[in-house]
């Protein structure tokens, strides 16, 4: 919990800056992170990081400058020193053709709805014991690896535009364990996500492996030849495709600049199938909830695609300024994108009865976008991938490449699960910034292009 002393330091510097006529915003990002990494059935790294960053942005007419400093925020002088660096940068900066929008903290916020003290202070031994239980129960003959990241993030934001303060405190965790057969080389994964320590269950991981192992142990791999297939994407694969599709199709910057696959469309156009609805919902429990963005804008439920119709685009502050658009609360990496569930059975295999041959691809490895204008994405299957016929598992499948378009996949959904899963999409580059999407536990898309496959897993 942020100390009163830090609030007082920030507010004092803010008020002094405002009195000097400086337009500035000040934000604190403080994280307490822990990560345990597993390799070859052992803990390979057990790491703790306590880091504090100060970000200062100054707007001088059409000139801007920002400065970030890491260290303990111990005095008014420390923050003022960072402010002076940003002031000088803004003074020298080349003026923009448009007027930047200053950070305005719309209202006082003090949120900690997804904060679990137990997770913030979790003992590494809790994680070690969890991995130990999984390894011992499922079997030491397999090679286990994995990682378990957990921690807390504090964001505190003020600006010279008013006296409001926005504060966020939250916890998050991202657990995964990979089981690899030492000779046959296939890999299975279990992932878990949440903001409470109790969101983790070793038993759930054990059960997921025990369900899949018989198929992998008994049947050799299947190599799909290039062609079109009915594909069931699991929640992890779906979330990653959605993230890429959103990045190239649903953000205002890409649309305004005609760089993405929706750039030829207008709001109100039908771009995807009837059974595709996407909303940014900061109240969704299956996502990491942030009540304000880094421009101080209050975040509210925001429709993106409704029954296949493009309803809204996600604008960051800079794009709003440049293209004269209203702020939408998306000056943040932590959106709460939620794809609405469908009507089909939670039990995927039951839903696949009568569907003939289906490739089940729960996760896609190393997605990328060869053609943003056409919305072409490519990535390869990896964990837990199966060939299913008429709802029965036939065999695991070798590493296979999917290369198709967002529009084609999301316009040809024949099944959408009635249950949503939360998928953690955080990366831990630089500062801790939790993000999760809530997506159906599976979708089934018709005529998906498989463009290559390996002779191995």
């Amino acid at each position: 919990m942020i100390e009163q002393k830090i609030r007082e330091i920030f507010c004092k510097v803010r008020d002094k800056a405002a009195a000097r006529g400086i337009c500035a915003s000040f934000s604190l990002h403080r994280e307490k992170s822990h990560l345990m990494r597993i390799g070859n059935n052992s803990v390979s790294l057990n790491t703790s990081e306590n880091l504090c960053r100060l970000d200062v942005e100054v707007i001088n007419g059409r000139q801007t400058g920002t400065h970030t400093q890491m260290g303990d925020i111990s005095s008014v002088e420390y923050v003022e020193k960072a402010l002076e660096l940003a002031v000088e940068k803004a003074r020298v900066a080349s003026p923009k053709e448009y007027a930047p929008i200053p950070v305005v903290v719309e209202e006082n916020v003090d949120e900690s709805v997804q904060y679990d003290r137990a997770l913030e202070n979790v003992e590494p031994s809790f994680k070690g014991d969890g991995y130990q239980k999984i390894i011992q129960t499922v079997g030491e003959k397999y090679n286990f690896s994995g990682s378990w990241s957990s921690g807390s993030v504090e964001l505190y934001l003020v600006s010279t535009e008013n006296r409001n303060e926005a504060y966020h405190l939250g916890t998050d965790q991202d657990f995964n364990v990979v089981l690899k057969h030492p000779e046959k080389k296939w890999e299975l994964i279990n992932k878990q996500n949440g903001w409470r320590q109790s969101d983790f269950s070793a038993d759930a991981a054990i059960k997921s492996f025990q369900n899949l192992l018989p198929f992998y142990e008994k049947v050799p791999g299947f190599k799909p030849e290039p062609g079109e297939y009915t594909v069931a994407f699991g929640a992890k694969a779906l979330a990653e495709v959605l993230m890429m599709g959103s990045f190239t199709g649903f953000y205002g910057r890409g649309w305004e600049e005609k760089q993405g696959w929706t750039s030829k469309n207008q709001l109100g156009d039908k771009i995807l199938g009837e059974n595709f609805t996407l909303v940014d919902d900061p109240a969704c429990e299956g996502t990491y909830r942030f009540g304000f963005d880094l421009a101080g804008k209050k975040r509210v439920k925001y429709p993106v695609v409704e029954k296949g119709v493009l309803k809204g685009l996600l604008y960051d502050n800079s794009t709003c300024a440049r293209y004269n658009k209203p702020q939408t609360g998306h000056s943040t990496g932590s959106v709460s994108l939620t794809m609405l569930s469908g009507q089909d059975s939670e039990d995927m295999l039951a839903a696949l009865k009568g569907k003939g041959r289906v490739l089940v691809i729960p996760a896609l490895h190393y997605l990328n976008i060869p053609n943003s204008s056409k919305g072409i994405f490519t990535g390869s299957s990896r964990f837990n991938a199966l060939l299913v016929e008429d709802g029965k598992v036939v065999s695991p499948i070798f590493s296979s490449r999917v290369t198709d378009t967002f529009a084609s996949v999301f316009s040809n959904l024949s099944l959408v699960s009635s249950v949503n899963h939360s998928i953690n999409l955080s990366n831990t580059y630089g500062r801790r910034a939790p993000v999760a999407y809530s997506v159906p536990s599976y979708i089934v898309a018709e005529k998906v292009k498989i463009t290559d496959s390996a002779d191995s897993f």
Partner: protein
Amino acid sequence: MSISEELKQSIRTNLKKVMDKGAEYVDARFYTHDDSETLLFYDGNLEANDTSFESGLGVRVLWGGAWGFAATSNPGEIENCFELARRNAETAARLMRLPLGMSKKPAHKSSFTSPVKTDPFTVPLKEKLDFLKAIDDRLTADWILKRFVYAEFQKKYSYFFNSEGTEVSKHLANVFAKMMVMALDNEGQMQRRSQDLFTTGKGTRGYEMLTQPELFSGHADRIKQELAELIKADSLEYGRRSVILLPGQGFLQVHETIGHPLELDRILGYELSYAGGSFVNLDSFGKLQYGSEKLNVSAFGGIANSPGSFGFDDEGSPERDYLLIDQGILVNALTSRPMIHEANEVAGRQVFADVSGGCARATAFYRAPIDRMTNVNILPGNDGTLEDIIASTEDGVVLDNPVSWSIGSNREHFHFGCEIAWEVKNGKKTRILKNPTYQGHTVEFYNSLSAVGDASTWQVWQVDNCGKGEPNQIMQLAHGVPAIRFDNVITGERK
């Protein structure tokens, strides 16, 4: 700013304290500076004018055969940071099958400073902005829809201490830059051409590198001209043909399909849950025909001017210059001290000599070192100039600059998209083609290597954002690559 004697003594004292408690090895890195400056003109607007200063301590402890790590940005927390790293290692040792180790090395006191004539952080901001704006002005045209030019400057001053008595100070400097122009083609698709700041391998790494026209700014008019042709071009049709990779594409091919699969921690399975494994195993060395006899690949390669040249890695091991692939045969890996120890233990024989490849690197004080490729280079060959290679090509495409890259989890297969292709028919470059892609299977692909250009075609391309590890780490390095030709490659996309 250098580290104070008081701080040095505090680190030495705490190192000893943790060793006295029973640790097998301890090291600590204190960064007085980890500074960066990013300047970005986007359509002529200065969209990024950012500086970032970081400093702090990272401590790594080997205890009971397991690693613990802790970091703090608070200089008042040094003792606690050592103790937290020790406790993390102690906890890790409870779940350990094969004790990890570090073979003993003699202590040394060393230093390394990147060759710099002008520290970019001492150059007035106005001068840097004027330089970039002048490039931006040259990129401007009515028909160009989007353009950007950016530069990033990095300065890292770090001080390494370990329990063997080794102490290394490093002053590293990096300069990265890129420019890009974009326009809509005749089908309404966005096309682009770009140029990164590259090096010849020689020279210095200060601001002066950025201002050499032949390495960066002098390419502005060329990429505009190529974009003008690209937006009128046809798409590359699906089919098998030869591909000739220029260094601007070849560097990423090498990075993804030679560099990463040869990182020893990946081979040993330590990246399985994230970046993936490797099709290479401990039995592959000395046996696997990775590529044709024309393929010779080195690590480091004696590059003076590269972000992958750093004197000593973050375990204090000196950087090395050695072969990874010799006439197509895999002979070595990218290694660090603990991974060599483990590989030899696992294999029950000496797969690798007990000499670190100098590959243990961390992105910042708050991350633990992991195996990172250094400068992995394809050595120049004997197949002449680029023109010579084109002249001996019947049906192919010359490819440059990546748009997308997607690699199989064990690096066994790949798919790349590029910015531009030049069709080659009967030994002649004919026309420009857009939306080029190619895909292949790594070993099959490198065994189809049929021409390697001479030194005149060899360039060093910088990588400023290689991602790996958990917690995620970004690393900087470079690859020296000549023009290279591969035959019978799948190109383009099926209808």
